[in-house]
């Protein structure tokens, strides 16, 4: 197993270099970013000075290689718009986004399993039809629209939830301030509820359908029939035999899910004015703040790679057929 992990980590180095290369190219083909960092009255000499100061006067390959060199030392450079180390800016925004994605994964998996199982158990009934219809709609509604409607209806009209904003939980936790973190927790969840649901709805719907169909498949298989015929209670059959296998496909999805959720996060963070990495990096791309974009992209792909590695390891543990 350790050689497997080592090989995967080695591959991920290649992947991360590839990721930085692509974003470097994407940010450079738009032309010289210097003009975003000079005032409108700057003279040619001043512009040239800024260009040199920012290092945009060097040939592209030199810029990229020196970026890679610094990256090896863990240095992403200074943010061009915040004038702070880029990695600090990104790390500052990361906890909020992790809270959001974790909760939406929790929503999308935690609710998907019972929904999918019940739909499968009551296949063909109104319950099944109801759950699946809602799931189908959940998979068809654009998330920004859902977010705005939630704000207007649940936030403004019914006043059940706060409209926008964020109460930090992970950040104080990471800083070691346990009292503040857990004091904030109820409020943090309260503020997170709407954005997390908005981000997670699509996945929730898809996972519920996934669980349902794999549950149906499992229920039809021999060992479940055997278990039943042995006179085990329906509860034991379902929980101990069917369910264990039915949510395997969902576990595989979680790894890939992260990349997908980040997509929703960019949009939803804007709608709920949520101070996370999605909005940060969208703004950074818009301001061509290359160090921040690079730091964010590298960090996100590292999270993605680790998550997938963990999922694969878990998978190998719960599914004895898989060998690493």
């Amino acid at each position, binding site marked *: 197993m350790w050689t497997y992990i080592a090989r995967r980590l080695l591959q991920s180095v290649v992947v991360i270099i590839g990721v930085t290369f692509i974003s470097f190219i994407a940010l450079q083909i738009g032309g010289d970013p210097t003009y975003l960092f000079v005032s409108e009255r700057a003279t040619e000499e001043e512009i040239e000075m800024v260009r040199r100061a920012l290092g945009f006067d060097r040939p592209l390959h030199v810029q990229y290689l020196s970026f890679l060199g610094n990256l090896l030392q863990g240095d992403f450079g200074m943010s061009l718009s915040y004038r702070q180390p880029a990695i600090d800016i990104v790390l500052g925004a990361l906890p909020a986004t992790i809270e959001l994605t974790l909760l939406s994964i929790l929503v999308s998996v935690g609710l998907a399993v019972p929904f999918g199982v019940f739909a499968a158990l009551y296949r063909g009934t109104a319950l099944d039809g109801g759950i699946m219809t809602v799931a189908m709609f959940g998979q068809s509604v654009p998330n920004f629209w859902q977010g705005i409607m939630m704000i207007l209806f649940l936030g403004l009209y019914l006043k059940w939830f706060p409209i926008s904003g964020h109460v930090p939980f992970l950040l104080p936790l990471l800083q070691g301030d346990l009292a503040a973190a857990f004091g904030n927790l109820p409020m943090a969840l309260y503020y997170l509820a709407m954005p997390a649901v908005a981000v997670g709805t699509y996945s929730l719907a898809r996972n519920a359908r996934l669980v349902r169909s794999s549950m149906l498949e499992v229920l039809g298989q021999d060992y479940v029939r055997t278990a039943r015929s042995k006179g085990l209670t329906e509860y034991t059959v379902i929980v101990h035999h069917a369910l264990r296998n039915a949510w395997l496909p969902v576990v595989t999805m979680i790894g890939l899910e992260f990349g997908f959720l980040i997509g929703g996060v960019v*949009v939803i963070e804007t709608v709920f004015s949520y101070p996370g990495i999605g909005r940060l990096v969208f703004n950074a791309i818009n301001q061509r703040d290359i160090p921040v974009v690079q730091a964010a992209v590298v960090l996100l792909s590292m999270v*993605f790679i680790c998550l997938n590695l963990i999922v694969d390891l878990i998978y190998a543990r719960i599914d004895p057929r898989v060998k690493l």
Partner: protein
Amino acid sequence: MTDSAGDGLTRLAPRRDSDLARGMKRAWRSLVAARWPVLALAILIAVVVVAIFGPAMSPLDPNRQNIMLRLAEPGAAGPRGATFWLGSDALGRDVLSRLLYGARISLLVGFAAIAVGGTIGIVAGLVSGYFGGWTDDVIMRLGDIQLAFPFILLAIMFLIVLGPGVMNLILVLGIGQWVTYARITRAQTLSLREKEFVEAARALGDGTAAIIFRTILPNIVAPLTVIASFNVASVILAEAALSFLGLGVPPSVPTWGSMLAESRDTLIANKWWLATFPGLAIVVTVLSFNILGDWLRDFLDPRLKERG
């Protein structure tokens, strides 16, 4: 498709014309039995018809503005004796006409992006699975890079630089899809590579390209079709999300996604028709693709089939 099926007669491929006809008949029976997919199919056919003939049916020029008649309610009088059956938008353009034109572009973006992503992915997957070795490694690493790079960020970067446009959107959304196709194709190719009919084709002296495209490809079309039908749905949603970020089509080009994105400022002012009609169009279409995809998967998945 018909081409390869015809050639298959002399090449020991497992599919034959009579198989195809029988398959179609079976598919239709299963479709009718399942009921909902029939409705979904009917809706999609209607949407395609609208996409093709919509411009001819549209009562007004979808881009003709009339800011004095903006935000008119459905049924309100339009310019020169016309009626805004579904209301007018923030620039006084006819929502119905834009919806009809929008069908064409939304579907075009959906299908074309799948075509682009599918083509790249299938070719990459076939090559990767058939040849293996370093080619396989390179292609799969490229796929890993793509997957590790949150797609939306990639799309934002390229669309900001390239500027809004239908072609750019198709390219970006298409390239975002290729890995899925490549992985599935590769897995299928790996398992097919050693099958008897492929070895038979090889023994008959077929070239590599012929084996890959004529012998292997037709046999993996089924799972790819399932993926594609789900994918059209997610591409339509992705287009809407990019429109929300201001990175979709140019403002004068109507798509359902961009119409919905444009409606967001007026939601609080209760101009419901701006969001409801394009929203319904998206939901109904995406829903239909999903239902059809579900059915197709059940129909084509041999394990589920065995269970009957």
